[in-house]
């Protein structure tokens, strides 16, 4: 069972994440689906015509610039961490929020571990799919690892030096 943290709580997962090689064949009309970027780029028209919710996911080597003009169509943008040490999705998340003004859910998927959640939150993620073998309840605590930060980021656009008393 997938464990989803949304905001600062564990919630029931309703979305289906489709693998990278998904085609349109037999695709559900009503389910909430997160489709791979390639499928969106090839079949945007058909995907928009569905009744169910639509999200897209990008791997760490894919660039958010590819969907910058399409963001209104997505309730979820999921960014993949193929391994937790691949930091490219942090930049993608910040660009989505800070540059392209995306207001929907930005979800961390893949090798998502508790000790990275605080960093992810700072970069604009607001949903995290925790690995099934981990305790998601305990992972929530790490969203509060630090009560103060130095530099500006998505969650706190004012650096500490502009807020220091």
């Amino acid at each position, binding site marked *: 069972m997938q464990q989803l943290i949304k905001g600062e709580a564990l919630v029931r997962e309703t979305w289906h994440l489709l693998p990278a090689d998904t085609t349109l064949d037999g695709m559900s009309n009503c389910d909430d689906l997160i489709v791979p970027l390639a499928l969106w780029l090839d079949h945007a028209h058909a995907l928009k015509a569905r009744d169910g919710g639509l999200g897209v996911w990008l791997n760490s080597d894919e*660039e958010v610039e590819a969907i910058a003009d399409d963001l209104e169509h997505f309730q979820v943008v999921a960014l993949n961490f193929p391994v*937790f*040490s*691949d*930091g*490219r999705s*942090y*930049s993608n998340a*910040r660009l989505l929020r800070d*540059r392209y003004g995306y207001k929907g859910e930005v979800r961390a998927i893949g090798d998502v*571990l508790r*000790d*990275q959640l*605080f*960093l*992810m939150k*700072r*970069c604009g993620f607001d949903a995290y799919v925790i690995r099934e073998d981990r305790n998601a309840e305990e992972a929530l605590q790490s969203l509060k*690892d*630090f*009560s*103060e*930060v*130095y*530099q*500006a*980021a998505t969650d706190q*656009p*004012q*650096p*500490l*030096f*502009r807020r*220091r008393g």
Partner: protein
Amino acid sequence: MYIYDEYDQRIVEERVAQFRDQTRRYLAGELTDPEFLPLRLQNGLYVQRYAPMLRIAIPYGLISSTQMRKLAFIAREYDKGYAHFSTRQNVQFNWPALEDVPDILAHLAEVQMHAIQTSGNCIRNTTTDQFAGVAADELVDPRPWCEIIRQWSTFHPEFAFLPRKFKIAVNGATEDRAAIGVHDIGLNVVKNDAGEIGFRVLVGGGLGRTPMVGSEINAFLPWQHLLSYLDAILRVYNRYGRRDNKYKARIKILVKALTPAVFAERVEAEWQHTKDGPTTLTEDELKRVATHFSAPAYETLRGDDDAYLAQRQADKGFNNWALRNVHAHKVPGYAAVTLSLKPTAVAPGDANDRQLDAAAELADRFSFGELRVTHQQNLVLADVRQADLHALWQAAKEQGFATPNIGLLTDIICCPGGDFCSLANAKSIPIAEAIQRTFDDLDYLHDIGDLDLNISGCMNACGHHHVGHIGILGVDKKGAEFYQVSLGGESGRNAAIGKILGPSFAAEEMPAVVTKVVDVYLEKRTPEENFIDTFQRIGMDPFKERVYAATH
């Protein structure tokens, strides 16, 4: 020096709590080795050949006597009684137990120290000139900028998992003692014609497997934009730096592949989106930080101290020390002093707990309670009255700090090597010692003059062998330890990567090889030339002929 306020203190204390919990989960089996690895590395904790190694940050090399005493305490309580100062102006303990590390970090937090980002693929400790703030040739004090960069880089959420480690150095003097040309980013603080402060920005320098000197991508970046511009550089690197091969992952490879001009365009394009945003530095913040680095309460002295000059005349030993270990100061009647951590037969950069306490004592007595760690692995007392130099020299001698060899052949930069480090191909400390023993005649050593000899035990180049006038690199040859020699490297304003002399040597040949290299220089030099000048004039061939003529 910079003193934490409640914000800085809280961030460091929360880090201790976070790492304590991470360590607990690791020991309880809730975190696997690969998962714990980046967490411990970002706290400077390596698992080494015999025990974990803990690297503690000394931001831009500045440390108070109180902090130095805390290091002595940690050396006694948690280590085998000594510490090792590294080429990144940091300090390392070689024998702490993993389960003690959270307690060590808590002790450090009590004196405003930490181990944050001293390893891992993130932004590391920013380094600078060990004579910052006191050098006679300084244009702008780099320390406030280093502190501003330290705060910006600490737990930067976007750049905690870069393709590879990332090192920034800042220089504000005419000479470049911070080696900015061999850092991922080198910043030279400059003033333009209107007297405004800005930065000349170099990117893509570095040592390691593919040594390179950095390229200029901005001739004058106004200071207000420093952090947004650094953000732009890091974002381009984080997104486009190679992640498929760790040996091609440093920013220098990306800069070279794109060309510096194209890389600069990418940074510029990225920067246009964030320039003038909230990250733009303010006069207030610069003033707040700079106030921490205001000059200590110097006495008004007329000029050089007569008694000091007379003592130099009278005592050759004192004069030798003054020639090498005492440095010009911008305030009349004062001097900066290097405490040598390079006596023969001690691992370069090592100090025991007694010496750490003694160094703190000397700082309190002679230099306003502050010290600096140099990237050459020595300690500096930056603000000593000339009138006190003789007393300081005598006290330093008692502690083994007064070897008069700063900048000379025996002031060797040396990594821990195969005695400690699990990455090393070969031992480095015994080679340093053998060379120091060969060059033990002080008059001869002083006659040879300025000569940087740097030793690394592997091509990760922690001993900066590429930029030594003489560089020595440990290599593995069919399971045996061999040493490759390079000549002509430089780390200053004219940074250059040394060229390889030829086939490598066995350990026992090394003292003779260095002697032959030095002999060629002594025979060929003109009266005004140092080793590097002679090398540049006559080239590699005479050295090669001499060294290999005898062995083959």
